[in-house]
């Protein structure tokens, strides 16, 4: 028996609905249909009047959820794709994110964003928006990379009093399997050493953790021991774990699937160089997607985002300093 990443998301929502009557689910096609990716399959039948189909109104979906949160609910809103949250942008960054600071009333709202690229999905069904939302004060931005994290971080995220942007990677949905949903269950805000090493640190998150591990495996054949740090949450960012890793390795590569200007990798490098400059034995490196929309064709897509090959190449450069 194995459990997939999307199973974990479904299980977490089932558990939340069962155990916390403040939780309800809202999103397009999530009730009878069970969602475009089946993350809510069967939940509407199991929990009548807790799972609702929304009109195609992303802005109102979030506005509505904010109102419900004010009145004590803990809504989970599914965006059909992360890319469509651009329509809800205002309600997320200006209404939900500012509410606690302005009024003292917290908004325990979770927005599920099916994120990241898959072959053939093209510019509008592939985006990684964690680095956009993380720029805004008042949001917590989670990027689970494992089955267990997908489960526990959704539970823990919904338990937080703040609006949570939960970035679930579509590529991992069915591809990523685990024996069990259990894991180390680290708290939100703590990164994980996914793979210990001593010659260089790769900081990654979400699907890129797996690409980084693959790259590390390849370099291991040449005797390099690469440490892979999984950020797990990009805001808050666990600088301590990163710095401790860099202290061991002296070398840092930050890998992300988002566009190359700014974003998570820039924040990681800027924070490490500010706080841990003396730990670095070589210029810290970055690897992101290319500076174009995510292309549709699988051949272009594969060259647009970081791959084990391009990560290896970046690591070899880093190790050569």
């Amino acid at each position, binding site marked *: 028996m194995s459990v997939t990443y999307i199973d974990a998301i479904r299980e977490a929502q089932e558990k939340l609905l069962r155990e916390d009557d403040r939780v309800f689910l809202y999103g397009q096609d999530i009730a009878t249909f069970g969602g475009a990716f089946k993350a809510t399959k069967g939940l509407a039948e199991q929990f009548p009047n807790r799972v609702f189909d929304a009109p195609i109104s992303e802005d109102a*979906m979030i*506005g509505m959820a904010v109102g419900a949160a004010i009145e004590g609910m803990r809504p989970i809103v599914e965006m059909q794709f992360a890319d469509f949250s651009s329509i809800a942008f205002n309600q997320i960054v200006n209404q939900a994110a500012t509410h606690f600071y302005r009024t003292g009333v917290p908004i325990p709202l979770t927005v599920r964003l099916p994120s990241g690229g898959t072959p053939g999905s093209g510019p509008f069904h592939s985006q990684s928006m964690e680095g956009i939302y993380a720029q805004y004060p008042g949001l917590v931005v989670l990027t689970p990379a494992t089955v267990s994290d997908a489960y526990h971080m959704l539970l823990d995220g919904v338990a937080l009093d703040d609006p949570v942007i939960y970035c679930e990677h579509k590529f991992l949905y069915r591809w990523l399997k685990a024996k069990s949903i259990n894991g180390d269950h680290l708290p*939100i805000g703590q990164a994980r050493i996914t793979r210990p090493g001593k010659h260089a640190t790769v900081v990654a998150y979400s699907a890129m953790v797996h690409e980084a591990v693959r790259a590390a495996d390849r370099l291991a054949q040449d005797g390099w021991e690469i440490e892979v740090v999984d950020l797990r949450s990009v805001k808050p960012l666990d600088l301590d774990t990163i710095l401790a890793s860099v202290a061991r390795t002296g070398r840092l590569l930050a890998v992300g699937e988002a566009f190359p200007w700014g974003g998570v990798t820039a924040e990681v490098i800027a924070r490490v160089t500010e706080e841990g400059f003396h730990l670095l034995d070589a210029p810290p490196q970055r690897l992101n997607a290319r500076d174009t929309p995510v292309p549709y064709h699988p051949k272009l897509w594969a060259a647009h985002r970081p791959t084990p090959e391009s990560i290896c190449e970046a690591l070899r450069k880093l190790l050569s300093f």
Partner: protein
Amino acid sequence: MQPYADGVVTNRDFLRSVFHSMLRARILENKLSSLYKAGKIVGGVYLGRGQEAVSASLGTALIQGSDFFAPLIRDQAGRTAFGEPLIDCTRTYLGSVEGPMRGRDGNIHRGRPKMGMPAMISHLGAQVPVIAGMLFAKRLQGTLHGRVGATCIGDGATSTGAFHEGLNLAAVERLPMVVVVANNQFAYSTPNHRQFACADLVEKARGYGIGGFSVDGTDLMACASVIGEAVRIAREGGGPQLVVARLLRLSGHGEHDDGSYVPAEIRSGFYGRDCIEVAMRQLVENQFATVDEILAWQEEVAEEVQRAVAQAQQEAVPDPYHEDWTALATRFPLTLSQAQ
């Protein structure tokens, strides 16, 4: 308070109550205007002059502690009628740290979400789905019965996607919601004909499958009656109601603006009449109040306003060194047990 529930007597009380809120708002806002002109207020001052009958009729028809009300920029009268203390207003405008926004947000952006009055963000239309969500929560909690949620917006805000999406969502859920559009002919300087092309905004109601009302917003008795009726229908399960009130803003967009783009014939036209004067006449003519009574109210309110201003002015302003500089309710890092 129900405008017509028990016939004429309640009607009288309702109208007196609406008018009293109108008066409090007008006198308070006149004071805010002076304070602004004297340089005592930072940030913009947006007044509801001329719109008090509409706003206060809505606020009075709502039940504080049970209903929800999302006021917009010209709803001092509705806020007052809904029960917001004047001191909340003066504290916010004058930057007192004791105010509901503690200096973090200002002027019209104040609110007390936990008392049924969310704090607006500036983005027009954005409060429509929020009110819907508050009602939706009550339905899920099994305590929706008898409640209403309401919000006011301007003619300009009907052009926002937020208004459309929010109202449609409320209609689909058949929530007990009232949206009052104060069509004051202009959005800032932009006249109706550059904002929409329908003859009357109330024609939008059918397209949402909701109830629609049109009312002369300068007429207290008409407002109290029509808005009261819309609130009643929503409260009794009739689904969302759209009320469009025709009127004019009797000041600039904000106190920085002289509104000189409003043509003279519009200013001096029908909607240019002052709803407070109309209301006073209506109350007196119908013997709901005497002139002396009204003069006494005016004096009382003026003193009340003076006190609220004086108190807010002597209070501390926020201190950046003691400010809690975080936007999150959660304190990170979490320990394992906290995260669960």
